[in-house]
């Protein structure tokens, strides 16, 4: 099973139509990857779908980088009892 970060990268690449190999943990969704306002919301929605979780809108939208998103999602999964590791 892929790691949380790998799954975050895969979703990000799909939503923003990027090559996954170009996406790094330190990349900012908006400044580096060019996510526009509605794309940020689509990313959150797709992360919810991918991980089967519910995220707080304000908290989720305030996460800026790919790495921070992976950390935040891992935390939400733990709180909601969703397994993320093999």
């Amino acid at each position, binding site marked *: 099973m892929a790691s949380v970060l790998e799954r975050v990268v895969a979703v990000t690449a799909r939503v923003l139509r990027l090559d996954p190999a170009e996406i790094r943990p330190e990349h900012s969704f908006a400044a580096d990857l060019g996510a526009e*306002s*509605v794309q940020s*919301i689509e990313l*959150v*929605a797709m992360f919810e779908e991918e991980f089967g979780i519910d995220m707080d809108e304000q908290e989720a*939208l305030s996460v800026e980088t790919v790495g921070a998103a992976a950390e935040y999602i891992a935390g939400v999964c733990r709180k909601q009892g969703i397994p993320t590791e093999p």
Partner: protein
Amino acid sequence: MADARKHHPLVDATEPNLMEDVFPYSLPPRILFDGPVVEVIDGRPVEFDFGSVRHRPIVVTDTTFRDGQQARPPYTPDQMVRIYDLLARLSGPQGVVRQTEFFLYTRSDREALDRCRALGRRYPECTGWIRAVKGDFRLVREAGLAETGMLTSCSDYHIFRKLNFPSRKACIDSYCEVVAAAFEAGVRPRCHMEDVTRADIDGFVLPFVDRLMAMSRQVPERLSVKIRLCDTMGFGLGHPGAALPRSVPKLIYKLNRECGVPSERLEWHGHNDFHKVHANAATAWLYGCDAVNATLFGFGERTGNPPLEGAVFEYIALKGDLCGVDTTAVTELAEYMRAIGLPIPDNYPLAGRAFNVTRAGIHAGGLRQDERIYNIFDTERLLGRPPRVAITDKSGADGVTLWVNAFFGLKGQERLNKIRVHKLARWVIDQYELGGRLTPISDEELAEKTRELMPEYWQKYKTASPPA
């Protein structure tokens, strides 16, 4: 001017001060005063206590059927009865909209008046409007009215150029003959001082009013003359220090305090030629004139009159209380007037279709967080009109989310967030970015797309009712 500079230290806070004593949200923002106002009149400082307006018996009077009707094809009696009934609801039991005036010349005028009175509403009281012609009092008497307006034009433009009097004295004598005829007929005359803001105040208006007051002292109080100050061309100015004849404060002062016309017998009638119509009317209230004459949605001769619904909201703001007014009648009146062909612009305050509709996504974001941020007061409670968004390319996901929540009627914790609405937000953006659309998206289109893209919520919230 003296140096007024001083230091202003920050008052730091960790909790917001929403100033709810001024902006109660359940009411229009209150109009509060810090202290007296001084106006220099004839070289002397004169103090005015605006705060006293809270306790003074100020009222709104209506001229929708007279000045309002002069600016459009005639209303049918059916239409007038419906409008009158809604005005009565707006007025409330205390009679905030105290009077409305009717033409008396045609069979249709009389039918409308009789049918309105037959409704049995206490307010607005029905009064008449006639020319300053002695014979016209027969019409007032036949209609059984206690009061009628009559034209007593004041400026030399009217006295000499329109009415062709040989002198001011001849003019006053003629007007006073008609006033005497009114007394004789047992009808209270309301002298409409036409074009007063272009008249010679000291040379004509004040001597005329002195004479009217002297005549009034000879008759019972119920017949004593009322004075309507008609700013016929919209020349009136509320600015402190403005000179006569254009100064609203000085006009009111001179009639009220120098001529001794009681406040309850003074009325202001404005026109909007210079965009000052509502402010001038409110100024008249503050300086001692108890009645403000207005028309629904400001519709009247040329640029119109003080908007009646604006005056009612000003009244509530000054009093700090609804005073029995049913403000939701404004919305019904607007719907009815639109239905019978009166154009009310979409952005028209309090009654336009879009008066509390935002198109900006950033404002919609604010509305989602706290409606008070971008709504002037509780428009749902007072006007039956919750704040809304019009969906365009500027609405953003916040605007779409606000629309969806309003559409499903969701409040509080039930409301959906942007994440749940992302598919619809994407569709909206694609309409403009990919489809090249230039027009707003209608509620009907959005409803259809909501059904398609959010079927689970449609099922949950809309199965009991058809699409909006």
